[in-house]
């Protein structure tokens, strides 16, 4: 009699997060010799992130991948991942996931009946603009930019002078080509996935924030496992995180190589200085978070 665990995420089947989940599922089947099977539900089949969290609390769903933004609504310290310009690239962000501060964030979910199992990364966030380059904040003044409206991103983008504009991810291409949007805060996976380079002229590589997904498991599910099963799962998790995050590093490089020649690319090396007022606004609102300070120390900043 095998036990089924359902593992849900909002990303499409081709996304690194979904591939990670499939890899994990295979690993678990092998490690437990079929005692535990993991079935993967991609593309929000079981609901959006808020619903997934509710289902995990209700004991209906065993596991899910949540964006750090969503988790920051549950445990404010997760907003530390939206610390602007904290990581130069996705490899640095992945390394930061091994710090004690990052682990402490996962532990802070315990009172809510959830276990944070680790981080799987999406690509770094950059800026795609339909008809202008960005070399100063004045280039973003009153520009309609699609963002993910989590508190930290809202604070940062408003202070940068842009007009955050809600548009569904699937409609971004058309919104860019029609002028409904002037720009997008985006990772390269989604950019390439939706061919947005054909609807815009300038890609500004800012690496302004990292974009980790938090793998969450229901506490009840975990506690119901035997200690051998727990050990087996932990091992498979460890291997799968390494596998998936390495895949993301490759994907970042491959996406960038593909975009060279398809769109004008600006490497904004002094982005931190250019966005100084926005960074200050983030600092004013989130600077006091204890784990933000710890994360900065432990990553040598």
């Amino acid at each position, binding site marked *: 009699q095998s036990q089924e665990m359902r593992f849900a995420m909002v990303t499409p089947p081709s996304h690194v997060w979904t591939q990670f989940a499939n890899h994990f599922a295979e690993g678990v089947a092998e490690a437990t010799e079929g005692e535990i099977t993991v*079935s993967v*539900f991609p593309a929000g089949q*079981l*609901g959006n992130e808020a619903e997934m969290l509710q289902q995990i609390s209700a004991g209906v769903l065993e596991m899910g991948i949540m964006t750090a933004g969503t988790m920051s609504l549950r445990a404010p310290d997760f907003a530390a991942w939206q610390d602007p310009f904290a990581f130069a690239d996705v490899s640095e962000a992945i390394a930061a996931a091994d710090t004690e501060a990052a682990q402490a964030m996962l532990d802070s979910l315990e009172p809510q009946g959830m276990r944070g199992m680790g981080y799987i990364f999406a690509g770094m966030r950059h800026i795609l603009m339909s008809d202008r380059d960005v070399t100063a904040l004045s280039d973003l003044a009153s520009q309609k930019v699609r963002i993910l409206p989590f508190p930290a991103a809202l604070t940062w983008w408003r202070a940068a002078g842009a007009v955050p504009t809600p548009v569904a991810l699937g409609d971004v291409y058309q919104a860019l080509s029609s002028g409904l949007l002037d720009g997008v805060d985006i990772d390269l996976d989604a950019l390439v996935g939706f061919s947005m380079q054909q609807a815009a002229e300038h890609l500004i590589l800012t690496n302004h924030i990292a974009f980790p997904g938090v793998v969450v498991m229901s506490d009840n599910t975990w506690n119901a496992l035997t200690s051998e099963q727990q050990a087996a799962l932990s091992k498979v998790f460890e291997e799968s995180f390494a596998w998936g995050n390495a895949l993301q590093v490759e994907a970042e490089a491959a996406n960038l190589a593909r975009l060279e020649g398809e769109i004008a690319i600006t490497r904004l090396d002094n982005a931190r200085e250019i966005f100084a007022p926005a960074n200050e606004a983030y600092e004013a609102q989130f600077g006091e978070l204890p784990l933000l300070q710890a994360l900065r120390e432990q990553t040598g900043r």
Partner: protein
Amino acid sequence: MKTGLSFAILIAMAMPVAFVLIGATFAFMLFESNFRVLSVLPGVMFSGLEVFDLLAIPLFILLGEIMNAGSITRKLIDAARLLLGRVPNGLAYVCLTANLMLASIVGSATAQIAIMTKTMVGEMERDGYPKGFSAALTAAAGILGPIIPPSMPFILYGVIAQVSVADMFLAGILPGILLFVGLALLITIRQPRRDIDIEALQAAAAARPEVSALRVLLEASAALSIPAVIVLGITFGIVTPTESAVLAVAIAVVVGGLVFGDLKWRDFPEMLSRTAQGSALVLILIAAAKVFGWVLTYYHVPQAIAGALQMMTTDPTLFMLLVFAFCLLVGAFIDGIAAMIILVPILLPVATGVYGVSPIHFGVVVCMTFAIGLLTPPVGLGLYISAAISGLPMTKIVRDITPFVALTIVVVGLIAVFPALTLALFGA
């Protein structure tokens, strides 16, 4: 299986369809004896409607209400009459063309059939057309409503399938024109025998007040600015479908109220009420279907069905024809919107994942097939409306509409086989 049986029993008991879906979900939980699932259902029902595109549904219904109250429909028929009134069998083409124009404003077949049967059938009868032919033609042409953009079924499909509603609208244009041409050819071939009473015709013409051609065209162009905003706005991506609906409502209020002067403030409370109730009938179905779909997904039912289908064929074209035939059969018995909401989440992953069918192409075929379902007995809402408004018995309408339904089946069959017919316009 047991769930399917409970579903059938509840449907047969005439429980409202939305609650049949919830009831089937309860039955499923009972058979799986997992009642923890119950605790997540309210959340699923709420977020099932948390989709911006769904706002287009009440807005397009409101638009239809305002168009009627502001006699904008009437002006469109006058214009079609001016342009086509003199060719042989002119009024039949007028009916078809007015349907095409109205289709570019109205999003649903039942609304369109109701409006056009009320305004066209009597007029055609006066011109000597057999009443059965007139009612059948009007009902058949009514399914242009949900195919030419804007379209409620396309909005729903876009939401369920997570594809762009604007793309769905564009994909509907060629099939809509194809159906229009097919129906025009059918009128030409059939040449309805008219029993013309010259005296009555002359009396009717004399009774009609003289209106200048210029005025008719001017008024029609004011009315046609509404579809222009919708089609151009969406085609060039200047507005989202929802925003185009808002703008169209604003224009219709101006045109119907200020230009034609037929729209009155006191009409609004009743129009808003009908809009809320009309859209809630559809939206509550979406929410309930989301709940049912969630439970089916949770228990891997779509995968099981996909497996069974794969055993039958590996060819995408054959698969599309299978889907077409299956939906035609289902559409004969179940309301198309409800059927679409139940079946699309199950069939679409198979279509795209296993057979590589474009979700847009799949959506157009499924939506068109369920539109035909409005005209097929035993359960055909379009037939009921046509019968109720024209005063003809159902059996008569069913007989007279058969050639038209046969034609629409051929057209949709062609579209199912040739994806280019849906995808050509936007090069997807």
